[in-house]
């Protein structure tokens, strides 16, 4: 064992309960979807048409119409994507639950922080690899039984090929981890509370004012739907870097 594996073990011990619960829920929901889909072979277009028909009867409004694109069929999130719940969970749990145990072993804040980033990198690679390998399975096998979609398609990452799919995911997942890590790097600090408040206020403000909404949308398009692999990855990593610097400023003087 070395210091890195020690921190990895502490991280695992402190989060394994949560990880098992998440995995358990995914399995349960997947099995539920699977059985329901087996029992009722459904057709979304037909379902909607029926629903609209009923609504017309109830309301007496024959002009009522609900339009959905013709190719809608994937109604469930891929189980491999559900696993991405672990990104915010670990981004929050690791700074909250591993700082004290590591300090208790006499570890320095700097070394703890560097190893924490390594663990985030490790998690990002692991989840990206898993989803990249799962994606072909989604397309070829699973969809015959369960209607699923994978974020790889949603964000159009499949345009970059297998390697591109993997790397875009790694960068984006790392960004999500560092974002939550930044928000919980020093939970007992007023500065952190101000950042939380600003962020919570920013969501409704950013989406309700049309002028801002435009920029918010642009930002997310550049971050997630970027048509350039290099730019997309660069933006994710650049933002991660800023968040890492911020988190270090919090951690460097974090009290036990």
């Amino acid at each position: 064992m070395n210091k890195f594996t020690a921190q990895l073990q502490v991280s695992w011990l402190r989060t394994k309960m949560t990880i098992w619960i998440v995995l358990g829920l995914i399995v349960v929901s997947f099995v539920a979807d699977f059985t329901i889909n087996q029992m009722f072979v459904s057709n979304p277009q037909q379902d909607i048409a029926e629903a609209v028909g009923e609504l017309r009867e109830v309301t007496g409004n024959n002009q009522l119409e609900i339009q959905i694109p013709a190719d809608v069929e994937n109604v469930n999130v891929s189980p491999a994507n559900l696993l991405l719940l672990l990104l915010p969970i670990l981004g929050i749990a690791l700074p909250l639950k591993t700082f004290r145990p590591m300090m208790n072993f006499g570890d320095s804040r700097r070394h703890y922080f560097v190893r924490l980033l390594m663990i985030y990198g490790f998690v990002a690679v692991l989840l990206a690899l898993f989803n990249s390998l799962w994606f072909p399975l989604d397309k070829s096998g699973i969809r015959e039984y369960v209607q699923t979609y994978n974020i790889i398609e949603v964000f159009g990452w499949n345009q970059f090929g297998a390697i591109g799919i993997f790397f875009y995911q790694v960068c984006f997942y790392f960004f999500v981890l560092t974002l939550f890590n930044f928000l919980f790097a020093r939970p007992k600090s007023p500065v952190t509370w101000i950042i939380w408040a600003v962020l919570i206020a920013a969501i409704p403000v950013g989406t309700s004012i049309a002028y801002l909404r435009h920029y918010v949308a642009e930002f997310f398009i550049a971050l997630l739907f970027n048509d350039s692999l290099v730019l997309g990855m660069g933006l994710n990593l650049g933002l991660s870097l800023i968040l890492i610097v911020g988190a270090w400023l919090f951690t460097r003087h974090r009290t036990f």
Partner: protein
Amino acid sequence: MNTVLEVKNVSKMYGRVDAVNSLSLDLAEHTIYGLLGRNGAGKTTLLHMIAGGIFPDSGEITVHGKRLNKGDVPTQCCYVRENNHYPKNARVRDVLQMAAVFYPNWDAKLASQLLGIFKLNPRKKMRQLSRGMESMVGNMIGLASRAPLTIFDEPVLGLDVLMRERFYRALIEDYAEYPRTILLSTHLIDEIATVVEKVFIIESGSLLMEEDVEHIREYAHLVSGLNSALDEFVAGKKVLHREGYGNAGMAIVYHGITESERSQAEQHGLMIEGVPLQKFFAYLIEEGQTHE
């Protein structure tokens, strides 16, 4: 002798309460020290600052010649906290393996011996241990780390007498072979009376006294007899406590007493006895309070 730890005018406030108030102390190498004070006297706050968990509002802390800046953690130092933070779902064995990588002088053989001495099952999970045995895991790490500066905060809390004895015996045994600087913080002085060489007594965040225990044993006396003779005897000596009953009284005197003084006092019908450390400590703190 080399200084291992230097605390200089360190202060720490919690809100408007002085937890530690301009406190200074030095620890030399190869010495066992006691840090004594009642609960809430500021012991743990001081130790937290030394270990770099929290930061002083003012003052300096230097460990092994290296000044601790805000956020630094001392190297070559093992701090065994009163409430340790080893993962509760870890097995004792895992905790020891993890601790081993953080202390360069770690002795795995000693660690496995101590498991036997303290009757700890390495396969048990931390949460299955009693409060006392959980702190014993910390104590084991403190001993096996062989860190040049090892700090124990209330190491025997929650342990029965037998285990307390075993801990202090193991400490003395290992220290005799591998001398280092050890700081034992406790409010139970009797337990460490023969183990420590020197004590720091703190109250309300300030240092009341810093002395060799043997010197205290030499200097602390309980003198009793007629008030007239007692008055004469204690004149010019430090008196920690005085009590009277009728014509007679007793005084706790902190002063050297020569052979001739002693026989003279006995001629005047005074009785001179030693004072157990725990009593001395109680009188000292009481006096420290009335002077506030």
